[in-house]
């Protein structure tokens, strides 16, 4: 093959006028060969999406694009919108991140697929187009496609919408599919399914795929070649094995080392990659990564390093003046990003103390209303359906599950410090149902919460001082004491005390989350509820925040209720784990035990769905794929609620299946943890796919 399918050469994209130009993409060059799977990895703001959107010609008109994009011998930048529209959808197709907003809400899924077909084949009859749409939906794994073809997007779940997006993309057998963060908005279990469908789509159409993602784990198992982007440029590119085994650019090394990894030892400290990417409005001279790079020296700040081949590795390029040293082993990778020291834990007597938080059979139901204009009650959702757990002093309970499993409702129920709808909640041995209004306010200083999105949880119009001191205003602490305490808190979370009079938007995501933690800690609580505290952060800064949380726990003797969907993170930080499914805890016990030997088929599937940032492991390990989506919470389910998706259930002999269908498994202790499965004692079935 002489010419690659797609050749991007020295692509530059700039937004904005003269006063403040954002140079989002700065000289990106890459090639995609026919049938190849290229992964492009980068954090937010790295320019990965902009550069791919430029290929489709879908950037807003305010973007200035220069360079060259050659597709199949044609220069795409020379084509106008009309000429490009003939290529879009027929030759090059794109899959977007958020499948809800990417589908037009007023047309059926079928209409939207047929539209794509008819745009490029005017002669196709309505009947044939519809038949093809049904066929495509079948290909991407939508059950009952004849019926679902007439559904509207809002009637689909997130995973099904993304399947439909893939169906639209492959409708005209494109030669190139660009997938822009196709799984970011989805749960791990659904992510695993979508990646499978994407692979299948690639096989059927023979198309080349460009997968854009922030998650190294996602590309590890799928891509042939990986490009890493940073501050608008490709900083390293290599065949997938090489990139993971022998990265030559310190940024890639840092990224790989900072990721919590399901395959790494559990107790190991994470390696933080401090700092934030430079602003694309005012790039520093020299290597844009120099400020965050522990291996940087004076020469790094002189001139921006070019993307050059790394000796000895075929097809491996890196933009680092020390790449040779790294590749040759003269500069050892672990030395660039050393593992931080463990912090000495304050010894807490775990045995004698009563639990600080205890939930007993807590239930929470909501009426379900349907329609935006015409609301009516159509049923009841059991968001939390009999949850019991307890957290000991100085320990961390990890609460995991897919979205819709009831994790968030559980913690909101806890944070109300009120009487639960059903069951009991006690904090430090006090039943919250018995509290008076004043007691409740007093108890608030014992338990505080840190939210997922650090931007949303800080009032953008208040200074850091006022934000962190807000809990103190409730008790009416004097102003000078507030100032003193805020300064101490800022120091505690690793920020400059002088930051107090700045505003939230002046900080990076990681710093904002530290501010959120400082606010929670200022009243010296003993319990911290952490609601997905790192999931909104870029991978590189996650590690810093997680390490901080571990340090704080050790130094202050805190107890954490850590809610997360990222199992690698939970595995890293939790002492105990509770796995939730449809409002119940299906497996609950010590983290060591559960992560090494999950007993519930759901736990097994969850673990297996987490991608591991190691291509070798990804290729060899067996997977437990979950079928379908979380059932509608409205359904009345008899027997085991997990039955409809259970990989084990399908393999069971009929008599055992009947038990699953008829009898709801109660929580019982099996191998030192609580499990809700009839067959938890059995040797694990070979449920691998």
């Amino acid at each position: 093959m002489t010419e690659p399918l797609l050749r991007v050469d020295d692509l530059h994209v700039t937004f904005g006028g003269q006063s403040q130009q954002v140079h989002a993409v700065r000289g990106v060059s890459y090639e995609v060969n026919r049938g190849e799977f290229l992964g492009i990895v980068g954090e937010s703001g790295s320019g990965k999406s902009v550069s791919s959107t430029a290929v489709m010609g879908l950037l807003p008109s305010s973007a200035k694009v220069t360079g060259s994009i050659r597709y199949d011998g044609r220069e795409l930048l020379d084509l106008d919108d009309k000429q490009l529209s003939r290529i879009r959808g027929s030759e090059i197709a794109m899959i977007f991140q958020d499948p809800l907003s990417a589908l037009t809400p007023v047309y059926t899924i079928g209409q939207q697929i047929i539209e794509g077909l008819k745009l490029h084949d005017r002669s196709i009859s309505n009947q044939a187009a519809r038949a093809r749409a049904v066929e495509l939906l079948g290909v991407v794994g939508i059950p009952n496609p004849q019926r679902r073809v007439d559904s509207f997007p809002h009637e689909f779940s997130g995973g099904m919408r993304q399947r439909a997006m893939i169906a639209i993309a492959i409708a005209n057998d494109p030669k190139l599919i660009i997938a822009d963060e196709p799984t970011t908005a989805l749960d791990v279990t659904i992510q695993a399914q979508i990646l499978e469908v994407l692979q299948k789509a690639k096989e059927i159409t023979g198309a080349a795929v460009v997968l854009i993602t922030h998650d190294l784990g996602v590309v590890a198992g799928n891509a042939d070649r990986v490009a890493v982007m940073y501050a608008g440029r490709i900083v390293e590119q290599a065949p997938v094995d090489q990139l993971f085994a022998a990265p030559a650019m310190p940024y890639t090394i840092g990224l790989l080392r900072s990721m919590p990894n399901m395959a790494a030892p559990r107790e190991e400290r994470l390696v933080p990659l401090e700092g934030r990417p430079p602003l694309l409005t005012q790039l520093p001279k020299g290597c844009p990564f120099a400020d965050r790079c522990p291996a940087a020296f004076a020469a790094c700040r002189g001139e921006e390093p070019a993307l050059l081949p790394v000796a000895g590795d075929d097809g491996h390029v890196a933009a680092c003046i020390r790449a040779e040293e790294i590749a040759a082993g003269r500069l050892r990778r672990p030395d660039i990003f050393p593992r931080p020291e463990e912090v000495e834990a304050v010894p807490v007597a775990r045995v004698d103390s009563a639990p600080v938080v205890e939930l007993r059979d807590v239930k929470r139901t909501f009426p379900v209303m349907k329609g935006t204009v015409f609301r009516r009650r159509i049923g009841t959702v059991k968001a939390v359906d009999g949850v019991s757990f307890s957290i000991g002093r100085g320990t961390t309970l990890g609460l995991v599950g897919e979205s819709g499993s009831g994790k968030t409702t559980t913690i909101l129920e806890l944070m109300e410090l009120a009487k639960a709808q059903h069951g009991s909640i006690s904090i430090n041995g006090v039943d919250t149902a018995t509290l008076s209004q004043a007691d409740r306010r007093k108890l608030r200083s014992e338990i505080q919460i840190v939210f997922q999105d650090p931007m949303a949880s800080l009032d953008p119009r208040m200074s850091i001082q006022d934000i962190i001191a807000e809990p103190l205003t409730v008790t009416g602490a004097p102003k000078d004491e507030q100032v003193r305490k805020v300064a101490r808190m800022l120091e505690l979370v690793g920020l400059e005390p002088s930051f107090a009079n700045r505003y939230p938007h002046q900080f990076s995501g990681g710093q904002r989350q530290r501010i959120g933690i400082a606010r929670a800690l200022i009243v010296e609580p003993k319990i911290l509820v952490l609601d997905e505290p790192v999931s909104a952060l870029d991978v590189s800064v996650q590690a810093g925040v997680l390490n901080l949380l571990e340090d704080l726990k050790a130094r202050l003797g805190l107890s954490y209720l850590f809610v997360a969907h990222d199992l690698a993170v939970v595995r890293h930080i939790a002492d105990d784990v509770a796995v939730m499914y449809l409002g119940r805890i299906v497996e609950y016990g010590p983290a060591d035990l559960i992560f090494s030997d999950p007993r519930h088929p759901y736990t097994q599937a969850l673990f297996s769905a987490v991608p591991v940032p190691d291509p070798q492991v990804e290729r060899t390990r067996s997977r437990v794929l979950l079928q379908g989506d979380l059932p509608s919470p409205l359904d009345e389910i008899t027997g085991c609620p997990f039955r409809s998706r259970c990989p084990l259930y399908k393999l069971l002999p009929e008599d055992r299946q009947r038990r699953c269908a008829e009898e709801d498994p109660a929580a019982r202790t099996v191998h030192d943890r609580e499990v809700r499965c009839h067959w938890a004692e059995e040797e694990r079935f070979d449920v691998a796919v």
Partner: protein
Amino acid sequence: MAGFLLKRLLNYLALTSVATVLGYLLVSSTLDPIARFLGRNPPIPQASIDTTLSRLGVNPDTPLLARLGNWIVNLVTTGSLGTSTRGTEVTADIFARSGTSLRLLIIGTILGAIIGIAIGVWGAVRQYKAPDQITTYASFVVLATPVFVLAVLLMITATAINRTTDSQIFNFTGEYTPGLSGGFFTLLGDRIVHLLLPTISLTVFAVASYSRYQRSAMLDVMSADYIRTARSKGRTRGSAMIRHGVRVALIPMSTFFAYSFGLVLTGASVTELAFSWHGMGEYLITSIRNNDINAAAGTILFTSILVLISGTLADFLYAALDPRVRV
């Protein structure tokens, strides 16, 4: 679905009833039916005033709630809204006049919506280009102009045109030329000519407000991901906007229609008055000037029924446009 619309309708009915009752109480306490009889020469005897007032059901000596009760009972059992101070049946008056008002209102609303939506879409698609700038500033000027000023300015212009062309192209006082004789088509033509200026006046006003709203609704959807998806399927920018954008941007318009109806209704009444039409706007104002409680209360009922119909219509539109509310 039908159930929800029914529920909404019931809510509207409740609102209409309460509004009408409150309206009746309001006019009964603000209007002074006796004022009409005072200061006459020779003075009208008190007994005669009382008889007249009692016959109308507006005698202040009867407790207010009792008057209200009678009015409602009368309305429900006989469908009558009572007698006006001029001795005519209010119900009959309203029937006679409502055609005049509705003609203007319906034509103005429909034309205003169609033209306004078209201009709004055009402006949004050509954002910051000449068409957008011109329509934007034009609608600002129109929205800064009270409807009565618009009407009078149109009359000044029409008169000027009539004078310079020495003709009667624009004939705008009243609904028709009194005493005009001729065949059906002559009369129809005369009415159409009379309808011209008021319709322009109301339509221009409606176009200005609908187009602003449609423009911003359109801008909201223009950056939506699904427009990008449609383009990624092979639509050009323009065709993606029209096929996917406009269709979605129409949804909030149905809500805006319900909200703006009160304003359009006011605009229509003001237009009628400015062009001396004998419609419901004039009826309301003369009833206030005559201290005519029954006529004023009747107008309130009429208005609230119009609002009820427009609200229900907007709900139907919403349900028809947005599959997410259909169940």
